[in-house]
Structure formats: structure tokens, C-alpha cells
């Protein structure tokens, strides 16, 4: 067993709310990083991956619990870590060389030695000859190389990476990934451990010696396992695809705690809110229809992993759509396989107006927030309700950002289904205006029914 470098003990993150209630972002979590391993942290968006990374590096203080660096509390320890950022986080007004030298300057290193080391690391990452360029003159891949050079020049004990390849195109990412792996395996860099946050399952399986999968609401470790496939890993081998499939299953099957009912007992403290809103997945109706049509083409049932592959989607793009379709009762997910339901099939086969109707009834039936908005509009004499009213109710349960996103999705769905309209300048939900003919037709239908 290799020595542990960083150990997190019962760390958690929450935001206090005015009303006793608090919003738990990360439930108490134990985690450690040992020397000699590449750890990948996977999870859907909103599972607090980046927050966890920032707590482990000491950038952000946990609300409770403690992070230890070589068994010393992290605030008093002399931590030697680097982060490679998703957005590269280079200083655009400094040249490539000045960017790489900046961390060494902060450590007060002599100018000559600083220059020598920086040039050496630039050479290592393949940026020889670009010293005098400004980041904006470089392509995305080259910029991230500068990001790597800046991270590696301080010879960090642990190299942290926050979705380092997700802003790059597929080929560039592939290339950089394999170069990183080569540096690591040949021990060209003195780094002891690598911790990578990603939402790309294949990337995790390609790189990692150990994979941690997070769940959300609140963020917590779902599973933590070692990857024993020998390097170089081939994406086409059975062992590889099985592992990818397994992770998909874990992610699409939050059976320990279904996503439809957030905050069930674990992690939540204090007074629980009276009514639970589901977490609406941020998917567009058009996307849901597209997925269902694709599923029909695949005979109504397919592996989610294969679907993602067909669409060239990553889980962060696909999962919300699958979740939404599931929430609306258009498909069911078992063992990582998605199967279309009869309503789902009808939805996929119908023309636009019928689709809206199906969506409308599915939404009112399954989504509490939409149901409440429709009722509230009907109950008011002027047929309009302020957004604020629902904002405050959601705020009890979600963080501010999430509340806004929930409302945005609800507005999007409600408008599509013609359940209500939203007056953006007055921030009010209102009854949709109907064409006279359509209104007649609808009342006729109602009589028929």
C-alpha cells in the first residue's frame, strides 16, 4: 500500500438558508489520494465534483470535516499542488513563458533558474519555440499545453485537473490525454498522484487507476473501485466496454436514492420542507422527442452507452434528456438499458400538435411544479402569478443558481406544452393566449370528452 498524501475526513459542504433549512451540496464524505495512482472523479453535473476538488486542494474550506495533507491539517501544511483548469485560466497579457514563470516567481526563485526550468518544461510538453507567443495566438490545444506546463513547472506532489480536456475538440483531447499518460508512466514528471475530475466516462476508464463515482442531491460517493485493465488500454476490448457499461449503469440507476425524490433522509438536517419538488432535468422538449425517435429506430430498447456513442454525446449531455423522458413516463431505464413506453412511442410518432398534447398531460401528471403553476394561474382572478412566488418555494430546497435553472426549465416546458405563458418583462406566469378557432375546437373537444 502506497502512502496516503491527501485524506479528507467527513468533509461536507452546505449553504445556510435563512430558514433553518440548509442546502446540502456535498454530504459527509471520506476520500483519500495515495501516491502512485491516477484517481478519476466522475459524476453528473450538480454532484459537486468541482467543489470536492477545491476542498481537497485547500482552495475552498469544507463546511465541516477536515482535509489532511500528509496527516497534517491542510491550513497549516505547506501544500504543493497544481490545478489544470477547464478554461485554461492563463493570463492573456503574459507571454507563454511569463505564464509558466509566474508560479516560480511567487516562490521567489532566481531569474536564471526560473528561466531554465520553465524552458525545460515547455520543451517537455511540446511548446518549444512558443515562449514569446501570447495565449490568444495559440489554438485551444496549445493553450492547454501551456496550462499543463504551468501546472507541472512547480513539480507538484499531486496534480489536480478540473475537466482539462472538455473545452477541446475530440482529436486534440485524445492526443493530449495520451501524452499526459506517457509523461506519467515514464516518470518524466516527479508528480506523485493525479486527480482528474471529468464527466467523460471513457476518459476516466482510459486514464484512471481508480474511479470514484459521485451521486447528486446531495453529492456523495456512490462507488469507488480500482481499474485493473493494463495500459495501453484499448477502447474496443471487452473489458473496457464492460467497465464503461457498468459506470453507465451506476449513473443511470440511482437505486440507493431515486432522483425524483431529493433529500430522502440522508444528508438533510433540520426541518425538512413540507413539499418536495423533483429536480427537473434541464432538457428541452425537442431533445426528448429526438431521443425517443432514435430509440424507436433501435427497436424501442437500447443500451444508454450505445445511444450516447451514436449521438457522440457525453453523459452530461445525454443524462438530463434520459432523466426527463423517464420523469415524463416516456421511457424506463433498467440495468443501463432504456426502453420506450407506449406513450413514449406514441409521442415519437405523432405530429407536433398531438405531441404537445401528450407532453401536456404527461407534464401535469408527473411534474409537481408545473401542476402547481397551472393551478395557481387558474385560482387567480387575473389569471397570472408572479415568478417570485415559486422562486421562494423552490429556494427552500435548491441553491439560488439551481432555483433559477429549475424555473427556466419549467418555463420552457410549460410554454412548449402550452400550459401557460411567461411574461418576461413582468416576470409573471400567465394563461396562454389562444387563437379563437383553436379555443372553439378545444371547447368542442371538451364537450366530446
Amino acid at each position, binding site marked *: 500500500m502506497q502512502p496516503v498524501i491527501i485524506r479528507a475526513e467527513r468533509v461536507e459542504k452546505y449553504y445556510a438558508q435563512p430558514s433553518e433549512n440548509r442546502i446540502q451540496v456535498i454530504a459527509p464524505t471520506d476520500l483519500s489520494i495515495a501516491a502512485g495512482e491516477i484517481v478519476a472523479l466522475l459524476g453528473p453535473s450538480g454532484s459537486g465534483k468541482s467543489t470536492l476538488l477545491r476542498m481537497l486542494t485547500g482552495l475552498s474550506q469544507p463546511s465541516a470535516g477536515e482535509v489532511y495533507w500528509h496527516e497534517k491539517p491542510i491550513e497549516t501544511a505547506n501544500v504543493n499542488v497544481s490545478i489544470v483548469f477547464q478554461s485554461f*485560466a492563463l493570463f492573456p497579457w503574459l507571454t507563454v513563458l511569463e505564464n509558466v514563470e509566474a508560479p516560480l516567481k511567487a516562490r521567489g526563485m532566481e531569474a536564471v533558474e526560473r528561466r531554465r526550468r520553465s524552458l525545460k518544461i515547455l520543451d517537455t510538453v511540446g511548446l518549444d519555440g512558443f515562449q514569446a507567443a501570447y495565449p490568444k495566438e495559440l489554438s485551444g490545444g496549445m493553450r492547454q499545453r501551456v496550462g499543463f506546463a504551468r501546472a507541472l513547472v512547480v513539480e507538484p506532489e499531486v496534480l489536480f485537473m478540473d475537466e482539462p480536456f472538455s473545452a477541446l475538440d475530440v482529436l486534440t483531447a485524445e492526443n493530449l490525454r495520451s501524452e499526459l499518460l506517457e509523461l506519467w508512466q515514464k516518470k518524466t514528471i516527479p508528480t506523485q498522484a493525479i486527480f482528474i475530475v471529468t464527466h467523460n466516462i471513457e476518459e476516466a476508464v482510459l486514464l484512471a487507476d481508480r474511479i470514484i463515482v459521485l451521486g447528486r442531491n446531495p453529492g456523495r460517493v456512490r462507488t469507488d473501485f480500482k481499474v485493473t485493465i493494463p495500459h495501453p488500454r484499448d477502447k474496443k476490448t471487452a473489458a473496457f466496454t464492460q467497465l464503461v457499461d457498468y459506470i453507465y449503469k451506476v449513473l443511470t440507476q440511482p437505486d440507493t436514492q431515486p432522483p425524483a425524490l431529493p433529500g430522502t433522509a440522508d444528508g438533510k438536517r433540520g426541518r425538512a420542507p413540507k413539499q418536495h419538488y423533483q429536480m427537473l432535468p434541464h432538457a428541452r422538449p425537442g431533445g426528448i422527442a429526438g431521443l425517443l425517435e432514435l430509440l424507436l429506430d433501435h427497436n424501442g430498447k437500447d443500451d444508454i452507452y450505445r445511444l450516447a456513442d451514436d449521438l457522440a454525446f457525453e453523459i452530461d449531455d445525454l443524462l438530463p434528456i434520459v432523466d426527463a423522458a423517464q420523469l415524463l413516463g416516456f421511457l424506463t431505464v433498467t440495468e443501463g438499458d432504456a426502453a420506450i413506453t407506449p406513450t413514449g412511442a406514441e409521442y415519437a410518432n405523432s405530429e407536433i400538435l398531438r405531441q404537445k398534447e401528450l407532453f401536456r398531460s404527461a407534464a401535469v401528471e408527473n411534474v409537481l411544479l408545473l401542476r402547481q403553476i397551472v393551478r395557481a394561474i387558474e385560482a387567480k382572478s387575473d389569471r397570472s402569478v408572479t415568478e417570485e412566488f415559486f422562486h421562494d418555494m423552490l429556494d427552500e430546497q435548491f441553491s439560488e443558481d439551481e432555483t433559477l435553472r429549475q424555473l427556466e426549465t419549467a418555463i420552457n416546458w410549460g410554454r412548449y406544452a402550452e400550459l401557460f405563458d411567461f411574461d418576461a418583462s413582468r416576470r409573471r406566469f400567465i394563461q396562454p393566449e389562444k387563437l379563437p378557432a383553436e379555443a372553439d375546437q378545444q371547447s368542442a373537444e371538451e364537450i366530446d370528452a
Partner: protein
Amino acid sequence: MIRLPESFSSLRGRETLARSQVLQRSWPVVLDLCVAGIGLACFYGVVVIAQYWFGHAEPEIVISQSPRALPLYAFYSVVRIFLAYLLSLLFAVGYGYVAAYNKRMEALMIAALDILQSIPVLSFLPGVMLAMVALFPTRQIGVEMGAIVLIFTGQVWNMAFSFYSSIKSIPRELSEAADIYQFSRWQRLVQLELPYSAIGLVWNSMVSVAGGWFFLMACEMFVLGTRDFRLPGLGSFLQTAAGTGNTAAIVWGLVTMIAIIVATDQLIWRPVIAWSDKFKFEQVESTKQVRSPLLHLLQHSRGLRTLKHHTIRPLGEAVYKRLAEERKARSELAAAAPPETEDHSASLKTVLRVAFVAVAAVAVLYAAWHAIGLLHQVSGPQFGEIMKGALATFLRVNVSLVLAAAWTIPVGVAIGFHPRLARIAQPLAQIAASVPATALFPVILIALVQMGGGLGIGSIALMLLGTQWYILFNVIAGAMAIPSDMREVATLFKFTRVQRWKTVILPGIFPFLITGLVTASGGAWNASIIAEYFHLKGQTMQTVGLGAVISAATDSGQFQILLLATIVMALMVVTINRLVWRPLYRLSESRYKLGG
């Protein structure tokens, strides 16, 4: 020289400029009251000092009217502007920095910014002058300092706000990168905060310096009671020339003024803008860049490079080394020291802080109370006069805004839509805009008087002169920002002229127009102090207005009226900002934002 924001695409600058006047309110009313209290206290302090010195005689300074004196006078004025600007820059950076990082002070400091920039600077003039004369033993230095401090108070706030909001908007990952690599505060400032805010600062500096000229023209020569404060300079030259009706001298003065402004633009702003281009926070290199031969020369000068190599660089190295050592020592100390001692010193600090705040609060309350006491001396009729003046000035400001909008919108849109016209019109407009309205004012007033007009029209003319350019340049920028496919749609569907204006042009320029109007409105209020009360050819011209009340109170040394009128004006500006401009601005940000 006032420049189009687009000429170096400083949209960020444009936004901070306007936002500084329509701040999102995020602080409790208590803080506004605190700020007001502190303001009153300061006023009282100034008045006490001023009254003490009121009885002293003042040696006359004779302002020459010969063109030969002009180079020296121009030099004096430029030095004043430069010193005031330097002071503003340092203060703005310090103020913005503290406001951004000190959580305790942040809300109070931003509330203070909001109120301070609404107070008409020129009503500070007598107080500041007298205080400075009092503080400095030889009179002339006092008057000099007074002028500099006054220009400073006119130009510092938008710069401070620009720096503050830049720091606040630094992308999270950049600032995390600085944290994880353990940048010292100094390195953060030099490599992150200053570069990130550079573009906003440059743009706001140009606006500030243009404003500085406006005030300098007014405060180089001013009368307080029987005392006459004069400074040799371009402003006093022009005023003296206008006062005696010396046309040749006026022309000489104006030519010098324009020459200085064109030279400043070429020798300072152009190189600075070209240089600041590298601080643009963007991912792709823009094709349009301002070029400056001077900057090229400076950057390629071997002598300068050698100089830098032997002075700045070793100095910088030493600083970084020193800071790194200090940090190391601190972290070792923190690791070694038991935590209890920290608690002890922390509690001591809290006690000291509470004591300090208590003492400061008592002092502020005492002085504010006395300042309010001063207000008791204002009689009923005087109060009526102030209210009448406030109404008159309010109408005048709005008339000038409407007039300005009426001509700048069609002209600005025409210029913005026709690149060829823009190439000719823009430089001309920039030169015209850069001549401070206060320098032209005496000339216009003489012409008006000869035609039988009075100060009523004259004051509107001055407001118009001082503020129309903000609207014009913003409208041009707005018209340029309307995508050409939107205009093509209008042509394709054969929109009528009215329809075209209603659906394409006006909504398209709306956010820019609001930005221009906000800035213009603030400027017009300030201008009223000079515009409504003027000494010309040995006599005093005056019209009904709040600005006239303030100026007259200054002349006669009636501090209680000065204080009340200033409060009324500040209240009106703040109220109009909150009730009119802020909602409009928000509307423009949400509904009329192109490509949002």
C-alpha cells in the same frame, strides 16, 4: 479627446461607466444614512476652517492677456490636470481595492461612491478652496491645491468604480490559479488585477480627464465674497479675456486649448490604448487595433530596454524574493504557533476596532449635528427660493437632454450607418467634443448677449455643449452595433420609415442611448452651477435656478444656503437616478440587449 468606445471595443468600459451611475442597490438604507452623516460632518469641518480664515486678505494676481503668456499658462493647466489625474488614479486603485476585498467596508464604500458621484462637485469649490488656503501657509499653494483637489473629486469616482467592478468580475478560475500558485498580494495586483482592469481604467481615465478640463476652466478663477482666487492658467486666461471682451485673446486661448487636446490624444491616449490592447480579455485576436508610432518607438528603443533591464527588473526580482521569504516565514510560524495566542490577539483587535468605530461615530454625529444646526438659519423665503430654483434647473436639464437627443439621434444613426460619413465626421466630432464647454461658454454668452438673449438660454446652451457628445457617441456606437442583417430584413420587407425606426433603429440603439443619457444627465446637473450664474464684463449675470443659488451663496459666503442647496441637488440627482435611469437601464439590459 473623447473617443468612441468602439474604437477599442471597450464594451466593458462602457458598461461600468454607466453602471456606476445606476448601481444595483445591494446595501441597506442605514448605510446611505451613514454616508450622509459622514458627508455632513465633512462639510461642517470644512466650514469651520473656512470661517476661521474668512477675514484674511488675499493678494491679487493679475492674469495677462498677451498670447505670449499662453505657453506658460497652458503648461500650468496641464500640470494641474496631470497631478489631479495621478492623485485620482492612485486613490481609485486604493479605494477600489479595499472595497473589493474588505467585506466589512464593501457595502458602505459602494454606497458612498453612489452618493459622492451624485453630489455636484462645484458646490465643494468654496469649501475646498478655503480649507486648502487654510492648510497651506503660503496662499498660492493653497489655491493650487484647492484646484487640484477639486478636479480630483470630479474625476475619481468613475475610475474607482471601474477598478472595483473589474476586480469583482475577474473570472473565478483565473483567481483560483493565482491562489493555488500562492501569488503574493503584490503579484496578484501586478499580474492579475491591474491588467484585468486596465482597459476599463483607460477608458474611464479618458472620460475623467475630459471632465477635469471642464472643471479646471471653472475653478482657476473664482470669487468668494470679496475674495478673488486666481490661478495663472488657460482657464483664467479665457475667463479674463471673455470678461474684458478681448476677442483676439479668446481665439488664441481656444487654439491653444485645441492644440493641447490633440497633442494629448496623439502623445498619450493613442499609445496608451495601443498598449492596453494586450490586456483585452479575449480568446481570439481582434483584427482591428489602434496603432501608435510613438508606442512602437518606445517599445523598440534600445536605450529604454537597457534602462529597464538595469533598474526595474532587478528591483522586481528583489521584491518577489523578499515576498516569497516572508510568506515562507509566516507559514512556518503558523504551523509552529499554538492557536490560542491567536484568539487572544484577535479579541484584543476586536476591542480596539469597536472602540475606534465608536469614537469615529461620535465624532461624525457631533459634526453632522452641527451641520444640521446650520440649516436652521435658512429662512422660509430662502427655502422657497431653493425649491423654485430646483424646479427651474430640473426643467432646464431636461430641456437640454431633449434638445441633445433630438439632434444627436438622427445624426448619430446616419453616421453609424454610413462608414464613409463616419470616417469624416468622427474625427471632427471628437475634436469638437474635446473642447471643454466651460472654455467656450464665455464666448457663446457674449454672442448671446449681443443678440439680446440672456443667461436662461445661455445656461441651456452650456448644458447642451457639455453633455450632447456623450449621447452622440453612444448613438453612433449603437447604430454601428445593429447587425446588418436586421437592417436588410427591414429593406426586404419594405418597412416604412416609421416602422423602421420603431422596430429596428430605436430598439437597437436603446441601451446605448440610455448609457449616453445617464451620463449626460449627471453632467448637466453639475454644469448648472456654472451655467446659471456668471461674471461677464465686470457684472454678474444670473437666472433662476438651483445652480444659481449655489453659486450666489458661494459668492456671498452663506454656507447654510450652500449646504441646503447642495443637499437638494444631490437628493434630486440620486432620486432621478433611482426612479428613472435605473429602471430604464435594467430594461435596456434585459429586453433590448442584442445577442444576449
